[in-house]
């Protein structure tokens, strides 16, 4: 199967936080159900299935009906968490996500598993790097990309009590806990990971800790970078983007296509409101064969790659 980097000490598979939180919520609220497309194991829902057998609805390998059933369950007063590999839950069922969830504004939570390039060598069919571009324009749909285990748990809790459609974009890639004191999860708001005024690095998901490490590299060179955890992609935190643009240069980092995703959103915003150089770190399109780690290194999703992008942006700074 796919590349899964061995979990080193201090790194966490955020899927554990997802399932532990979902089970807690389901204990307390009988309306919560899970819907899957034969993806019980990859969604880590085996334990949920044992505890709540009738509340785990496996429609088989059929993503269109999986998302449609989610909308119907919401119509019937349930709170469905529809969980499957991101590449299929978005791409295969995109019209259902658009019409049945976003446009109809049903209270359904989509949970995209193994997003980005988590499936490494399995190739472009199994990568989910287009999902931001596909989902970001959908009115009503909140898109959240948690950066670590704590934020994953908080996002799942928030999604359960929010009345409306949500896309939670999770990863199986082990990530460290972000070192931020006194955190509060605020959907729709960027989180300041580090203060700085020379440049802003705007990252999401699995790349936030890399952006923080890049800021350390830059610090050693006397460059003070602000680092933002931009975990809500839709709607955009415009106030945070105004403050980021005020630094005069921006780098965006995402485990996604550089076309139409977080970088695209930031470029749209800055070009209309506060033009500054924006360097986008991410993937250019369909990718060659390679492990997740190799793809991250090759395309500059690394402290060094992000620092290099910062230098490019600073060179263009007025």
């Amino acid at each position: 199967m796919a590349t899964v980097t061995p979990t080193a000490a201090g790194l966490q598979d955020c899927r554990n936080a997802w399932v532990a939180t979902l089970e807690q919520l389901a204990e307390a609220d009988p309306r919560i159900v899970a819907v899957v497309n034969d993806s019980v194991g990859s969604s880590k829902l085996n334990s949920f299935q044992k505890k709540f057998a009738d509340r785990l609805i496996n429609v088989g390998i059929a993503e269109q009906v999986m998302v449609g059933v989610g909308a119907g369950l919401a119509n019937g007063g349930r709170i469905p968490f529809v969980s499957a590999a991101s590449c299929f839950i978005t791409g295969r069922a995109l019209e259902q996500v658009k019409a049945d969830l976003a446009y109809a504004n049903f209270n359904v939570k989509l949970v995209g598993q193994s997003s980005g390039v988590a499936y490494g060598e399995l190739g472009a069919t199994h990568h989910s790097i287009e999902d931001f571009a596909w989902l970001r324009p959908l009115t009503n749909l909140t898109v959240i990309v948690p950066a670590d285990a704590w934020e994953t748990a908080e996002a799942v809790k928030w999604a359960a009590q929010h009345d409306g459609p949500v896309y939670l974009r999770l990863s199986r890639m082990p990530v460290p806990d972000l070192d931020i004191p006194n955190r509060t999860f605020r959907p729709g708001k960027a989180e300041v990971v580090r203060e700085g005024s020379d440049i802003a690095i705007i990252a999401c998901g699995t790349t936030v800790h890399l952006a923080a490490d890049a800021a350390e590299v830059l610090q050693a060179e006397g460059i003070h970078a602000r680092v933002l955890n931009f975990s809500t992609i839709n709607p955009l935190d415009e106030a945070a983007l105004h403050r980021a643009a005020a630094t005069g240069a921006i780098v965006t980092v995402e485990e996604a296509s550089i076309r139409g995703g977080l970088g695209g959103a930031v470029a749209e915003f800055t070009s209309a409101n506060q033009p500054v150089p924006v360097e986008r770190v991410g993937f250019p399109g369909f990718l060659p064969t390679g492990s997740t780690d190799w793809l991250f290194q090759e395309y500059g999703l690394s402290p060094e790659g992000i620092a290099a992008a910062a230098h490019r942006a600073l060179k263009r700074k007025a």
Partner: protein
Amino acid sequence: MLMNDKVPLIREKALWMRRTAFTMVHRAQLGHPGGDFSAMDILATLYFGVLNFDAKRPDWPDRDRFVMSKGHATGALYSALCAAGYFPEDWLQTYMQPKSLLNGHPNRNYLPGVETNTGPLGHGFPVATGIAIAGQLTGATYRTFVLTGDGEQQEGSNWEAAMVAGHRKLSHLTLIIDRNRLQQGAGTEETSGLDPLDDKYRAFGFDVVEVDGHDHAALLAVLGAAPASKPRCVIANTTKGKGVSFMENVASWHHGVPNAAQYDQAMKELV
């Protein structure tokens, strides 16, 4: 009340709905009257003979659900919802006008009584399946009815839903197929044939019933029958454009719109 006592009311409502829908389409010079008219008797029978609903409480959890999967037939759906008391008659005059709540395809956030947003084909049946699963999970007694076009059955998502509904024995789910044998441009059988539809649905685990989709008493008997142990598929044999001579069985009336003379002619026939 005997079931057949409802037939005169259904007949009266179906006539009003046909006149109303054709007037909406004529005024807007937009719409899908052919499919409106093939479905009209099915909707009239549901709303005035079968469905358990309260138009003043569209969110009543125990209501029976009707999902209009052939979402383009808004002339039929809106005239039915209006006749059923979900919104006042003057709203119909705004059909497809700028910012109207009566969009070309139904939106549940605009109009009470709309269960889900449809328009792209093959969406209603999966959603109805989810509604029925919710009822099965909670032991609710409500029933879920979904109407698809027959050409719409070419969408693969329907067959995903059919597998799930059959597998889960969703006894409170009824799929109605408006079998007028015409799709937008040609006959279904010359485009991508559907027959034998009954065998297909039987193989997917449905009880299958065929009915004359314009016979109110027959529709009432079939749609009003108590749930059994399986989901039900009602193949309603219909005529596209039923009730207006020049529209009947003419594919171009799928989204044709009447001129003044055609409108007057139709109003003379619809009495």
